[in-house]
């Protein structure tokens, strides 16, 4: 193994201990501080696991009674009638809006974020790279309601001509069909979300790009590569797992973003015709829950919304799992 990757592993030290060579603590002086710290760390780890499982269990426990009474197909129905004796609700519209909005955000944020990170680590002079990095990080410190306000009041009038342009010239393509929504489209949410997740992508990518071994970069340059070729052959392959995990983290944030989306989005009236258009309105899982949380007056109603929340939970879980798998598989080639 180590011959392939050239990882430096500590030498095994022969000694009286029969335990694992790296298990220094277990070799066990048994001092109070040692045991205490080990205990705290273990406790924290277990606490997180317990928390996530309990949240999952809570969602399931609350959702199941409502799901059992649901008279429509939960995964494919477009209806949303959650009160009364004959509830009929399904999440397909929520799923479409959530996923479409987040994917638009990703297609903008990942390339831009990677470019920003490359600029900061490879191109920018030293005096500029630090301030630029902290400026991008500042984007993450802006509360999401501010993005909502800014998006709706300031950015929307600027962005609207773009939407109208696309609808006019590319309207024949189903994704760009013209609609009558005045603002707050899925497309627009995607753009606002991309700005919100940009700092996540940038910060993580910057960290990994900065760790590219100097020997790799110098090797590429010595072989006659231009700066772009050096980045392509040395920096990008080295940073790929980092970029992927950054993108997945960002996607998780975009999927679950609540306040800004609730604030901006135009919801659709019941019984509207299905449209694939990105210029249609809609509701994401989070925004529908937020919009209606004040009026959860019966367990069945709350259960239906919690069931929607459960789907979001699972969706985020899947996204993170995919990220893990991709990173594991790429690891061997990048070190």
């Amino acid at each position, binding site marked *: 193994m180590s011959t392939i990757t050239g990882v430096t592993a500590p030498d095994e030290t022969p000694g009286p201990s029969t335990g694992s060579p790296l298990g220094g603590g277990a070799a066990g002086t048994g001092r109070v501080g040692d045991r205490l710290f080990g205990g705290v760390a273990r406790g924290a780890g277990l606490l997180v696991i317990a928390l996530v499982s309990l949240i999952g269990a809570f969602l399931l426990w609350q959702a199941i009674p409502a799901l059992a009474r649901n008279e429509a197909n939960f995964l494919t129905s477009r209806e949303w009638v959650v009160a009364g004796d004959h509830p009929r609700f399904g999440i397909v519209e929520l799923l479409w809006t959530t996923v479409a909005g987040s994917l638009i955000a990703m297609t903008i944020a990942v390339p831009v974020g990677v470019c920003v990170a490359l600029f900061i680590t490879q191109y920018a002079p030293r005096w500029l790279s630090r301030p630029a990095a902290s400026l991008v990080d500042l984007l993450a410190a802006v509360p999401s309601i501010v993005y909502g306000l800014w998006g709706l009041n300031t950015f929307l*009038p600027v962005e609207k001509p773009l939407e109208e342009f696309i609808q006019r010239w590319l309207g024949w393509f189903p994704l760009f069909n013209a609609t009558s929504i*005045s603002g707050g489209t899925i497309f627009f949410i995607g753009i606002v979300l991309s700005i919100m997740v940009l700092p996540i992508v940038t910060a993580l990518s910057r960290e990994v790009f900065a760790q590219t071994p100097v020997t790799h970069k110098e090797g590429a340059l010595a072989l006659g590569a231009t700066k772009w070729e050096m980045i392509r052959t040395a920096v990008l392959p080295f940073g790929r797992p980092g970029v992927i995990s950054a993108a997945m983290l960002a996607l998780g944030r975009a999927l679950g973003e609540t306040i800004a989306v609730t604030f901006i989005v*135009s*919801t659709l*009236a019941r019984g509207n015709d299905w449209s694939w258009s990105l210029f249609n309105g809609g*509701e994401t899982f989070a925004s529908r829950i937020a919009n209606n949380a*004040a*009026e959860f*007056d*019966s367990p069945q109603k709350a259960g239906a919304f919690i069931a929607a929340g459960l789907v979001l939970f699972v969706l985020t879980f899947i996204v993170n799992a995919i990220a893990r798998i991709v990173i594991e598989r790429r690891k061997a080639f990048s070190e």
Partner: protein
Amino acid sequence: MKIQRFGQLAVITLAGSLALSACGSDNNTDTSGSGSTGSASAGAAECAKGTVNAEGSSAQKNAIEEAIASFQDACEGATVNYNPTGSGAGIKQFLAGQVDFAGSDSALKKEEKDGKVETAEAEKFCGSPAWNIPMVTGPVAVSYNLPGVDKLVLTPEVIANIFSGKVTTWNDPSIAKLNSDAKLPSTPVKVFFRSDESGTTENFTKYLAAAAPSAWTAEPSKSWTGKGEGKEKSSGVAGAVQSTEGGITYAEWSYAKDNKLGIAQIDNGAGPVELSGESVGKAIAAAKHDGEGNDLRLKLDYATKEPGAYPINLVTYEIVCSKSKDPAKAGLTKAFLKHFSSEETQAALEEIGYAPLPEEVRTQVATAIDALS
């Protein structure tokens, strides 16, 4: 033994209330002496010390906050907290004993829903009937944005057709017929509705269903059943109409005023009625009483043909136990509600977009509050 204890309790309560009323009159002289005119006269009610918590309807948030501010100015040592989480949440917390009274857009329901009857639940919890006391009336304004059109008259049928997507342009003959002297543009009608579940939506659709039953066939509900584009909360719909030419929505009066939107005059059959404190009061005074004794649930006649009565209104109630479970707090709750329903406080509400209770209803409310214990 027991009788003796009751006797003691009665004496203590009596002494307590005497002390409280004494404190009340003290406060009055104090405040009028300090010259804060509005709040001093509004604080003519007796005071009590302590803290009362309430929760519920967000439709009455601004009104109750105004009342709390003037009440606390007048009564030192009294704290009233109101958490505007929504009517459903308020009733839930009230029934769970978490708050002392609830604010709600609708009276406690007598019909069974999800296996529970709210009135029965409340009676069981209070150990006495719970009363619905109407306190704040908020008219719902049909607000539009049409430059150059300052006066717009609409009938319930036309409103229903607009909000169900059947009328699509502003120069539609049905609108033009009602507004012969207005220059109506051919702008498309853009309907905005509340994307969150709301009492405003419920009352507006109740109005449409009652006043235009042939044009509006959907069941009234808290979530929107018509057409259009949804925006979050009153501020969202009002803001969207403000920025969209040809936009129309239904929103509380204050939001229509704050966003400088046009407010349609409603013609229920007895001529166009402009939205004003007076025209709303007329409609509330004409409402039928649905409850017994001091349980003042009102049944608004949305289809009212009374001349000069503005028909689209939302009444929010304060829901209290008629015999409080916590005598210590009963005094304060009563004092606060009395202050809230006083003529001065009610009159002050008109500035922030609510209509004062008409005198007939206000005296009934005062009687009910006096009967609280």
